[in-house]
Structures are given as C-alpha cells and as structure tokens.
C-alpha cells in the first residue's frame, strides 16, 4: 500500500467519522430534522471499496448512506446542507439524510427502503455493459437487507447476465433492534454467493486492508467481464440504529468491547504507526484539516437559505428535450 493511498484512506475515514459525530451532535441539538442513521464504526468498508472505484463508477447505498457518499467523493458542504434541509444541499432540501446522493460522482443515492438499492446497482452495471463504457457498480447494503427478495433476484440476475457489479454486504451484526443471527439463516452471508455461482468472501470489515484486498479481486473481476461477486464485510454498528435510539435491546458492554477492540480507525492507526507507514504528524494534520472541513460544512449549511415553498413544485418531471 503506498503512502498516498494510506493518507487518502485515513482522510476519508476521518472525514466520515467527524462528519457523523458532528451530525449526531447537531441532530441532538435539534438542528437537523428527519431520521438519521450513522455509519460510525463501519468506515473501513466504504473507504476501502470506494478507493477501488473511479469517479465514473457507480454505487448505490442505504438509509445509512453518509459514509458511502463521502467515500465516493461527495462534498461534505453540500451534504451537510442537505441534512439541514437547505437549498444548497445535493437534493435542494428535498432528500435529507435518507436520500443523500451525488450523481455527479456516481453516487446514485441513499435509500430509505432496505434492500432498495441492490437492483439499481445491477441495472447501472447493465447499462455499463450495454454501453460498453467500462464502468462498474457497487451496491452497499446491510445484513438485514440480505433477507429481502431484492437481494436474491438481483444477485441471480447479475450472475446470469455476468454484470459488472460487486455486492457488498455490511454485516454490522444488527438490523435495527434485531441481531442478525435471529433473522438471517446463515452464519456467513457470503455463503449465499454459491446460490448464484458467484465468488463470495468474508472480510474483516474493521480491517481496511482486508476489505481492500478482497474487494480488489472483485472489482477487478467485474472490470474484466468476469461478472458479479459478493463480499461480506463483518463490522459493527457502534451507534444506535438511528440518532436517538435508546438502545435497550443490547448491552452497553457489547458496544464498549467493540469500540475498544474493533474500531476500524483505531486499528488502522495502530497498524500504520506500528509499521511506520505513516507518522502521527501525518494523522494529526489530517485530523485538523478534517475537523476544519466539517465545521465549515456546518457553517455553510447553517448560512445557506432554506428553499422557498414554491420550490416544492419543481424537479418532479424534466421537460422532454432536456434529457
């Protein structure tokens, strides 16, 4: 891994982490409306996978989409503005957290429907195949989503058509208040790949190096016309399901242990420092820059105007000819 990549990884992970911590705080302060789901503790997955993608490649995301959006290269200013419901947001205030998107960098949208993005990614991959433009698609989704029919139909379709798509299941052990073992009939969701004759692998989702290595094989396969694959990244949802979740369904110790032992950023830092790949100055500089970046994103969001009520009547249809 070259130093540039490591620096980029660290910056992306920290950008996600600080963005999410900030959103948490601002939500609790009543500044951000709606429902918000945080990606804290899962940063390594989106970061590693998206570092394998070109800007023109596609991703689809979930209700927990800030991390994916940042990792794909979106601007935190316009993201924060969107979360605040402002006109300068990516969706002009129409989407909010659950519909954060930056089509300009191939981020085809967070999705309020669990499992709703899986087939969208297969479809984007189909378009790439038809157009021969070499783009690939990645779909991120949760362990809970792997029990939806969309998963099955999408993976089967992608397999029979050899679509250039990588399915990334972020198994964070929980789907809302339900532990994945109670709702999911396999120990490793990656096992399900065999039901579609595609490669499946389990990665340690809190180890960015492991995710990267396994995802790299899959993105390469997709680029080479080898078809789809399924990567299960085992990670952990450090925060509640949504901001404000009283989390009565799990023990505090379970979370603390994960935080202690398994925080992907902590693990990354320990390794790069131990192996001398990066210096603590490198890291501290990024920390500062990122804190700065996110706080100016908040300032931008706050200063931005709300949309006018009449803007609610825009953006439904595009006029013919404008395509």
């Amino acid at each position, binding site marked *: 891994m070259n130093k540039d990549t490591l620096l980029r990884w660290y910056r992306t992970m920290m950008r996600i982490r600080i963005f999410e911590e900030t959103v948490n705080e601002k939500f609790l302060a009543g500044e951000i*409306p*709606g*429902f918000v789901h945080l990606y804290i503790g899962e940063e390594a997955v989106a970061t590693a996978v998206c570092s394998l993608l070109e800007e023109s490649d596609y991703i689809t995301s979930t209700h927990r989409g800030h991390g994916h959006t940042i990792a794909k290269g979106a601007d935190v200013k316009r993201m924060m503005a969107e979360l605040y*419901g*402002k006109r300068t947001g990516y*969706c002009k*205030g*129409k*989407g*909010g957290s*659950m*519909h954060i998107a930056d089509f300009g960098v191939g981020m085809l949208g967070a*999705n*309020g*429907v*669990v*499992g709703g993005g899986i087939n969208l990614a297969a479809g984007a991959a189909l378009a790439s195949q038809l157009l021969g433009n070499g783009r690939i698609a990645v779909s991120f989704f949760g362990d*809970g*989503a792997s*029990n*939806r*029919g969309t998963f099955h139909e999408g993976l089967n379709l992608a397999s029979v058509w050899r679509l250039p798509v990588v399915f990334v299941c972020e198994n964070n052990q929980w*789907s*809302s*208040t*339900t532990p994945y073992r*109670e*709702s*999911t009939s396999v120990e490793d969701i990656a096992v399900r790949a065999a039901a579609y004759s595609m490669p499946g692998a389990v990665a340690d989702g809190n180890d960015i190096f492991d995710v990267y290595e396994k995802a790299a094989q899959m993105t390469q396969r997709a680029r080479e016309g080898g078809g789809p694959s399924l990567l299960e990244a085992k990670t952990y949802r450090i925060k509640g399901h949504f901001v404000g979740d009283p989390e*009565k*369904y799990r023990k505090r110790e379970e979370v603390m242990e994960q935080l202690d032992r398994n925080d992907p950023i902590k693990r990354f830092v320990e390794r790069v420092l131990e192996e001398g790949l990066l210096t603590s100055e490198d890291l501290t500089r990024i920390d500062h820059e990122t804190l700065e970046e996110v706080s100016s994103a908040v300032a931008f969001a706050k200063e931005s105007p*709300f*949309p*006018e*009520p*009449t*803007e*609610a*009547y825009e953006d*439904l249809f595009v006029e013919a000819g404008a395509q």
Partner: protein
Amino acid sequence: MRNITFAEATLEAMREEMARDARVFVMGEDIARQGGIFGQFKGLPDAFGLERVRDTPISETAIVGAGIGAALGGTVPVIDMHFADFIGVAMDEILNQMAKIRYMFGGQANLPLVLRAPDGVTRSGAAQHSQSLEALFMHIPGLKVVAPSNPKDAKGLLKAAIRDPNPVIYFEHKDLFRQRGEVPDGEYVTPIGEASVVQEGGRLTVVSYSRMMTQVQAVCKQLGDEIAGQVELIDLRSIVPMDTETILASVRKTHRLLIVHEAVKRGGVGAEIAAVVAERTIEYLDAPIVRIGAKPFPVPFSPALEPAVIPQEREIVEAIRGLLGARI
C-alpha cells in the same frame, strides 16, 4: 373513561384480543425487542410470549405471504408493516392473494388477518417515509380498510379488525400515536363500515379521517362557534366499506361538501366520495365539491418544503369560509 394515547389504545386492543383468542398472534420487524417504532407493541412479549409476538426478518413479502398462509392454517395474524410506506414490497401478496383468496376459491376459505400500517407524514420523514396510501387499497376489491383518527376509535376498530373474518388493512397515522384522548372503560368494538358524525351542522358537510380529522377539528375551534356551528363533521373511519349513506344524508341536509385527507388529492379517497355524491345526490349541491389533499409531489424532506405539499390548516380554513359563502 381514561385519557390515554393512541398507541396505548391500540395496545389495549391487542392485549384484549390476544387474551380473548389464543389464535391471535402478531409479527413484524422490531416489535418484540423494541415494542414497535411507536411503542405500540410494548410489553406484549411479556404477556404472550415470543411465539405470539414475533420479530421477523426484513422480508415484508414473506411476512405478508406467511400471514396469509397462517390465516388459512387456522390462526389470526396481525402483521405490522413497520411503515405503510413499505407496503409496496408486499403488494402482490395483498393484491393477488389476500384480496382474492376467498373469492377466487369460491368461498372455501376465510382469511382473518389484519395488516397494521403506520402511515402519513412525520418529522421530515421525506419521500419514502411520509405516505398515505389508503386509496390504492380502496380500489382493490376484497379488502376492508380503516383509518381511525383518535384513541377511542383506534382501539375499537382494531378490535373489530381482529375479529373480522376478512382481511383488514388498518392504517394508523404515525403522528397520531402520541395523541391523547378519552377511551371508554370496558369492552367495546367500533363496527367497521360506520362513519361517525362528530359534530352536527346545517350548512356544510366536511368529511375527513385519520390525522386530517384532528386538523379539521382544530380549525373548527379556531373558526369560532358561529362559523363552526354550521359545519357537520364526519369522521369516515372506514374507507372500505364506506358509509356513503351517512355522507349522502348529510350533504342532502347541508348542500355543500368539503373532503380533507392527507393523501395525494389526485385519485385519492376524496375523489371517490366526490364521485359518489355527484352521482347520487348532485341535485342537492349548492356549491362545487371541494377536495383538499396533498399536492401531486412526493413529500419533500425540508421543513421549509413539506408544508407546501401536505395540506395545511390554512387551506382548510379558506375552503370552509369559501364554501359557506359560495352559491352555484
């Protein structure tokens, strides 16, 4: 009489019906451990065990399909859709199985089943978490559809739905769960298919249901006794079967009709009501039939935009004033 929340009222209905009939069980996402997103299932596992209060995978298609099978197998399933917004995931099961099984098999089987679907807008839920979809199900023969507006009816209609040997979709508004109201002590059931004349009046019939009913009532309070006294207020409660006789009788008395719902106006329940009135009693009308419903857009996220799409009290006020002044 007790003053309890809408959520508590539905919880009482569940408790009473589950105690009354051992065949009744409930399943859905996050209802056992969490007690439901709105607390509407709290404590049920302690009372009835995890066999009868089941957390499910995120598999709405299977949950509804299996609910239908379980009804055919002799139980009485209550299925929680989490949010009504996800009901489309099980649409084929509702459209092609639930609604049709009794009929297409010539009455061989009954299908006692309740689909509970929290609907409507809440807290900047945005496009995929703010929908009112009852009109879709009104159009599908074979389903009963109810939508209570207050804790009393919430309890009575849920009990009626559970006892009904036919499939019932029970829309409960997300933003009503915390609303308080008087609920009678002791056993009662609110019959499906009967509208409630909440307030009598002689010059304008207002038909509404679910959360918008509470808005209409609030508006009437604002308008003061003189104006509000002229308004006859009908809470529809059941969408299917619809109590058209009560509506028609009222319109024949008042000669004016306003319909208010949170769902999209175009193709909404209000269209059917207006059409029935225009078909069966148009000669009594002294003014155009006015409908208030959401504008034809998905519900936007921003608090600055949401009110532009969802009906506001101001619109209701204007419509009532306008209609009371109107003459053809």
